[in-house]
């Protein structure tokens, strides 16, 4: 099909547009996951977020996740759009839509998609707090890297 099912975009995401991509006559259930920018994490207040992606590889990995889902859950269709750049509080960072003839598969496959995104898709989030900024690394058990650590600044080759 000619619709782009897996996209990295720089402008606000329209939920309806992503849902439309998976809407089919044979599907009775569509689930979506919408990830938004949360203001408070534990006691820390986020001012805004900045997402960066390795774009071509991110699209490839999103596509792979979709293929994995279609193998695991029969007759599902998947669309994922992730936004990058600066995002303010309550703005949408990611929309995952899964359609299926039956609802159970639509819920399970959707949750699988977000778990896999957090594992393998090369996208990074930088939290801008009131008190500073940090790149967040979820992949290896919520590791976070305060700027400049654990890497020390060096000179160029």
């Amino acid at each position, binding site marked *: 099909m000619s619709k782009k099912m897996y996209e990295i975009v720089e402008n606000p995401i329209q939920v309806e547009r992503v849902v439309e991509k998976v809407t089919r006559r044979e599907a009775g259930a569509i689930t979506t996951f919408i*990830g938004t920018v949360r203001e408070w994490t534990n006691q820390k207040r986020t001012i805004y977020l900045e*997402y*960066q*992606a*390795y774009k*071509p*590889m*991110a699209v*490839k990995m999103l596509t792979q996740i979709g293929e994995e889902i279609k193998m695991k859950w029969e007759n599902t269709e998947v669309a994922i759009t*992730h936004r990058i750049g600066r995002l303010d509080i309550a703005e949408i*960072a*990611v929309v995952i839509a899964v359609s299926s003839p039956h609802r159970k598969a639509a819920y399970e496959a959707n949750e699988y998609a*977000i778990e896999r*995104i*957090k*594992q*393998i*898709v*090369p*996208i*990074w*989030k*930088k939290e801008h707090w009131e008190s500073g900024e940090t*790149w*967040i*690394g*979820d*992949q*290896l058990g919520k*590791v976070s*890297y305060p*700027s*400049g650590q*654990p*890497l*020390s*600044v*060096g*000179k*160029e*080759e």
Partner: protein
Amino acid sequence: MITVLFFAQLQEVIGKERIEFEASNITVGELKEKLMRSFQLSQLENVMTAINEEYALAEDVVSDGDIVAFIPPVSGG
């Protein structure tokens, strides 16, 4: 010529998005060693590597014309 891409905190620490240099038949592990020395990076161990947009292992070989990307722990979603 090999192209190496940096992202997130790595990009900030190194101060560039990409570097290019001559090399061939070097493994991912050897390339990491070389970069750690060159940029005085204390560690690249938990940074994954992709060759031409596919995840690669330390023993995989990088060839002329390849694009290597260092992928710090991801945090999308």
